[in-house]
C-alpha cells in the first residue's frame, strides 16, 4: 500500500532516465548497431518499462520483482548475442541484476552425458550466471522430442524452476531461429509463460550489410577503396543468394578472407609500399572470392 507520498511529489522521469545512465546505453546501441529498427524500439520500450517499474518500486506501488526473461528470435548473424550483451548492461544500470555479466551457453554446457550428470552441470552454470544474464543460444536443442529419455528435459526443469523462483537473481535469454523457437515453445509451454519479452531480429538488407562491413573494417583500421566498396556491394548481393548465408557473420568471414588476400597481394608487390596501402582493401581482394565464379542468381 503506497503511503506517505507527499501530495505535491513530482517525478522527473527524464532525470531518472539519464541518471541511470540509460541514455548513454541506448545511444551507444543506436550508434553501434546498424539497422535492427524494430529491435531498438523494443529495447527502448523495455528500458522505459523497467525505469517506470523501478520508480514504482521506490514509491511502494509494487513490490514484486518483474519477470524479465526474454526470447530473441532471428536468423544467424542478426546480432542476438551483441544485443544480449547490451541488455545485460541496461539491466545492470537499472539495478535489475546485481553484477551484469553475460554467460553465454549452449546445450552442451547444460546437459550431461549420463544419468545424474545434468543437474550438477546445469547448477554450476546457473551459479556463474547468478547476478547477471544467462544467454542460451539455440535453446530448442535442449528439448529433443524424438528421445524421451534425453537428459535435456532435466536441464529444462531446473531452468524453469530457477526462472520462476529466483527472478531477482538472474535473467534468462533464450535465442534461436524463429520457427524452431516457436516449435520449442509449443512443446514446452512452461517456457512461454515465463518469458515476458519476445524480440524478433529481422534480416539485414544489402545496404545495412555494406554499412556493417565498413564499420567492421574501420574498427580494425582498414577501409574500402571506392572501387572495393562497389565490389563489396556486389559481393553481398551474390552471397545472399548462396546457401548458409548468415548475415553479419558471413560478412565478417568475407572480410577476414579479404584481409588475407590483401596481405598476400602486398607481400607479392615488388619494392616498398606506402603505410596507407596497409589500410586499404582493393577490389581485387574481394573479387577473388568464390561467389564471383558462379553466375549470380536472379533473386
Amino acid at each position, binding site marked *: 500500500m503506497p503511503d506517505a507520498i507527499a501530495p505535491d511529489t513530482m517525478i522527473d522521469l527524464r532525470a531518472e532516465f539519464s541518471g541511470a545512465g540509460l541514455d548513454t546505453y541506448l545511444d551507444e546501441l543506436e550508434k553501434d548497431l546498424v539497422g535492427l529498427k524494430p529491435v531498438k524500439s523494443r529495447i527502448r520500450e523495455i528500458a522505459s518499462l523497467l525505469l517506470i517499474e523501478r520508480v514504482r518500486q521506490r514509491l511502494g506501488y509494487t513490490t514484486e520483482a518483474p519477470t524479465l526473461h526474454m526470447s530473441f528470435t532471428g536468423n544467424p548473424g542478426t546480432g542476438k548475442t551483441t544485443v544480449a550483451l547490451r541488455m545485460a548492461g541496461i539491466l545492470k544500470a537499472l539495478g535489475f541484476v*546485481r*553484477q551484469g*555479466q553475460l554467460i553465454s551457453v549452449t546445450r552442451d554446457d547444460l546437459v550431461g552425458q549420463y544419468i545424474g550428470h545434468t543437474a550438477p552441470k546445469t547448477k554450476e552454470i546457473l*551459479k556463474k550466471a*547468478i*547476478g*547477471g544474464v544467462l544467454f542460451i543460444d539455440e535453446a530448442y536443442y535442449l528439448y529433443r522430442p524424438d528421445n524421451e529419455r534425453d537428459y535435456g528435459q532435466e536441464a529444462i526443469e531446473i531452468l524453469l524452476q530457477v526462472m520462476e523462483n529466483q527472478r531477482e*537473481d538472474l535473467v534468462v535469454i533464450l535465442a534461436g531461429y524463429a520457427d524452431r523457437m516457436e516449435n520449442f515453445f509449443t512443446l514446452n509451454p512452461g517456457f512461454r509463460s515465463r518469458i515476458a519479452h519476445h524480440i524478433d531480429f529481422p534480416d539485414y538488407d544489402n545496404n545495412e550489410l555494406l554499412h556493417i562491413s565498413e564499420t567492421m573494417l574501420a574498427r580494425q583500421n582498414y577501409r574500402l577503396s571506392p572501387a572495393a566498396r562497389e565490389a563489396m556491394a556486389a559481393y553481398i548481393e551474390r552471397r545472399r543468394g548462396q546457401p548458409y548465408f548468415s548475415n553479419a557473420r558471413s560478412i565478417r568471414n568475407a572480410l577476414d578472407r579479404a584481409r588475407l588476400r590483401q596481405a598476400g597481394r602486398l607481400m607479392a608487390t615488388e619494392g616498398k609500399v606506402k603505410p596507407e596501402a596497409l589500410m586499404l582493401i582493393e577490389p581485387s581482394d574481394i573479387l577473388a572470392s568464390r561467389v564471383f565464379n558462379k553466375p549470380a542468381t536472379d533473386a
Partner: protein
Amino acid sequence: MRITQGCFSFLPDLTDEQISKQIQYCLDHGWAVSFEYTDDPHPRNTYWEMWGHPMFDIRDAKAIMGELKECRLMHGDCYIRLCAFDSTHTWESLRMSFIVQRPAHEPGFMLTRQEADGRNIRYETRAYVAEKPEGTRY
C-alpha cells in the same frame, strides 16, 4: 569454550548478511571462495575437509551463499569456515578465512600434564569431543 581463528575472530559471529557482504568483497577482488568443515576443533588441525571445489568464475555472493546453505544442511553440527583464495601470481594463497558456522555447544579442551624425565612437565591440550569417534562429536 568458543573457538576462534582467522579474520574477525575477536568479533561476534557474522550474520548471514555480513557473510554475504564479505563474500561479495572477495568476489569483487577476483578471489575464489571455498568452504571447509571439520568436527575436530584442535587448533593444530589445519587441514579441514573440503566442501566441493573452490568456486572460480562466480560473480555474485548469492550463488556462494546457496552453497553455504547446502553445506550447513549436510554438516549442521560441524565447524565450517570460508576461505578466499587469490590465484594472482606471487600471492597464490588464501587472502581471507573465517568461521561461518560452529556447533551449538563447544565443550572446550582438557589440559593434561605428563611427568617426563627429570621432573619436566609436558603439556597437551585435548578436545573433550575428540574422545568420541569422528562424525558423532557434536
